[in-house]
């Protein structure tokens, strides 16, 4: 760093540039160490790992030469989680009781009660976003949020019903409406946010994907059964076979394309007062990342199988039992060493996959998305008065407890 003493003090940052300066190796080390600690702490380390990941990503995201900062701490997440459990326990018991009453009237009638948890999950997503936002600081001023998690959950559910009825066609408009609600209630200091993206724009970019998805669905799940009942449709089975071969190959490309379109549309719609964001993320920008993840998953699965085989061979060698017996159900139930080896291997498998996902789908996606972004009229945020209170981490706790994630 000493050579810096001879260069100008503040290299003039390129106006409007948003950049990511995080070191990939450092992040990889962070998540590998975190995965190891998650293993020895039975998962409790997830609060610290999530916080470390956010601190790394935030503090390496530079807007106009100034890095953002994440001021949340793991203990807040831990307490949020514990409080969420205390609140969820009676809800869960009540849910069980209501479920019993409904089931008594009609078997499996309690399934719609999942709707309740869907609503609750949306509420949690909103509140978790509020927590993260109030821990996000740029230039000594924090972001914050108003609005109501319940109002958001209601909107999300109603739009969800509409999206379901229209077979997903309404999805872009749903996202736009929800983003408008979120951004309208988002502030940077006293600068109010808004969302300028429209459902139509999103639809225009993504309708081809929707069409492909619907076509594949109809071909694979409607035409296939039909060809069984109507021999006249037999020639169509060539098309079916083609799709069955094509869809798994195309899916990672198309999903990566969808995510890229979504990111670009979302970022380009964000406004804070006069400040405007613009993303130039290309549709193919994320494809290589998804394929790398698939490659790693395959490699890890092969290693896992090899490990299981080696363990079985070892145990068979010690016990003098034939290998084939170890893989029967009674062999697995009886053989405690095999069970222990299986559990350890499985946990290692899950953690390794988590590391891969965090490096490629979190850090790398983040870096590519950030690199594609430009900010215009940033001077409107040059003198913003600080405002807004810190929100508690209860929402994060609910989101953790309910296993939902949102942005």
């Amino acid at each position: 760093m000493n050579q810096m003493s001879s260069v100008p003090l503040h290299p003039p940052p390129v106006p409007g540039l948003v950049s990511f300066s995080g070191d990939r190796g450092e992040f990889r080390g962070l998540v590998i160490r975190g995965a190891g600690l998650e293993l020895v702490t039975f998962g409790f380390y997830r609060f610290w790992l999530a916080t470390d990941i956010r601190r790394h990503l935030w503090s390496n995201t530079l807007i106009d030469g100034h890095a953002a900062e994440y001021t949340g701490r793991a203990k807040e997440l831990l307490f949020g989680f514990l409080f969420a459990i205390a609140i969820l326990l009676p809800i869960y018991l009540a849910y069980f009781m209501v479920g019993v009453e409904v089931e008594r009237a009609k078997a499996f009638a309690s399934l719609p009660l999942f709707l309740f948890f869907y609503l609750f999950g949306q509420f949690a997503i909103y509140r978790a976003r509020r927590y993260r936002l109030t821990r996000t600081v740029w230039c000594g001023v924090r972001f914050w949020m108003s609005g109501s998690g319940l109002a958001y959950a209601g909107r999300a559910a109603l739009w969800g019903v509409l999206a379901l009825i229209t077979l997903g066609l309404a999805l872009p408009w749903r996202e736009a409406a929800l983003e408008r609600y979120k951004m309208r209630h988002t502030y940077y200091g006293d600068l109010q946010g808004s969302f300028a993206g429209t459902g139509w724009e999103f639809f225009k970019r993504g309708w081809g994907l929707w069409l492909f998805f619907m076509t594949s669905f109809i071909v694979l799940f409607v035409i296939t059964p039909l060809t069984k009942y109507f021999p006249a449709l037999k020639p169509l089975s060539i098309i079916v076979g083609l799709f069955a071969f094509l869809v798994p190959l195309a899916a990672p490309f198309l999903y990566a394309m969808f995510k890229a379109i979504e990111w670009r549309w979302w970022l380009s719609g964000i406004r804070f007062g006069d400040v405007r964001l613009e993303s130039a993320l290309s549709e193919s920008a994320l494809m290589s990342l998804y394929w790398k993840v698939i490659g790693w998953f395959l490699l890890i699965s092969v290693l896992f199988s090899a490990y299981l085989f080696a363990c079985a061979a070892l145990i068979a060698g010690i016990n003098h039992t034939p290998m084939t017996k170890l893989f029967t159900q009674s062999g697995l139930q009886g053989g405690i060493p095999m069970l222990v080896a299986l559990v350890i291997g499985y946990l290692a498998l899950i953690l390794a996959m988590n590391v891969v996902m965090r490096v490629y789908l979190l850090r790398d996606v983040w870096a590519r998305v950030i690199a594609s972004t430009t900010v215009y009229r940033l001077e409107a945020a040059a003198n913003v008065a600080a405002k807004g209170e810190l929100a508690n981490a209860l929402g994060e706790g609910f989101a953790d407890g309910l296993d939902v994630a949102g942005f």
Partner: protein
Amino acid sequence: MVSGMDSGSENISEPSGPGMSAIYFDGTSSRRHAVTLAFKDQLDINADQNRLATWSYTDIRRADSPSGTLRLSCLTAPALARLEIRDAAVAAELTARCSELDANLPGRRGVAAIVGWSLAAAISIVAMVWFGVPLAAERLTPLVPPALERRLGDVAEGQVRILFGNKTCTNAPGRAAFNKLVNEIREAAGMDGAIQTAVLSTPIPNAFALPGGKVYLFDGLLAKAENPDEIAGVLAHELGHLKHRDNTRNLIYNGGTSFLIGLLFGDVTGSGALIFASRSLVTASYSREAEQNADTFSIDVMHRLGRSPKAMGELLFRVTGKQVDNSLSVLSNHPLTEERLKRMSDEDRPPSGPPLLTAAEWASLKAICTSGK
């Protein structure tokens, strides 16, 4: 020391150190203040002849920053006031003066503490699952009102009927023989009349009890039985589960266990817990101890009826001999069939009571599911 680093406002420089520039955010607005730093007894932050802030070195803490930038906060300043230093020499100078700079970082001991507490929490949860939950289930089961138990039974009944095709066998002579058999066992067991029984037409050789007094016998088991005593033993076994309220205990045990495990791994929705709990009702998998108790009960009842308990053991052996791997069977999670057969054979006594069913009644019971088709 590095010299010539200050860009303007040299006049603030004090003998104690050269003025050095940095960017300061006062935490009340996003305005960038280009400032010079003066290292005195405390750190002076100055802009255009004005002193913006004075930070005591021991109160200065490091804030997150990208590499190449030192970002500082101060305990006594507004929480979000930040000082950004890009110059390595200035950063080194400040770092040397601030002894408590990294006091907020968790460090090695912090991580050890997290690991230690997590282990303690995990051990406590495991201990609760091992000792606490069975104890709680044992103590709570008698407190569950029979009305609630009946409701649970109704729920499970609905699911069972859907899972197994809702085909109750209603052949009238068969039904009469079945009722006679059940009544004889029920009276010998000293249980009241609030027991509903039915034979379901499904090839699975199984029988189970649901909370609130419902006993189901599957036609598949009936088909494998060779005499009324075999079926009587199985029914008495199921009544034993009812009498001991094993279903309710199981429900509390499974619900509590999966909730605690979920706590450990983060899924507290109870969605997992709910599945486990309701599944336990349907599959009726009890602990080995509960099974042994139910066997004891069955042996007892059969003695009281003056019939041999050995018959049930023989039926079980006949069934497991052919169907080892049936996870839905009443036989899974049970003690080894050989052990059970041996135990029941040990209790074998020559019949002292009248046969439970006449040959004609037994024949119609065997045929209870035939006429409906």
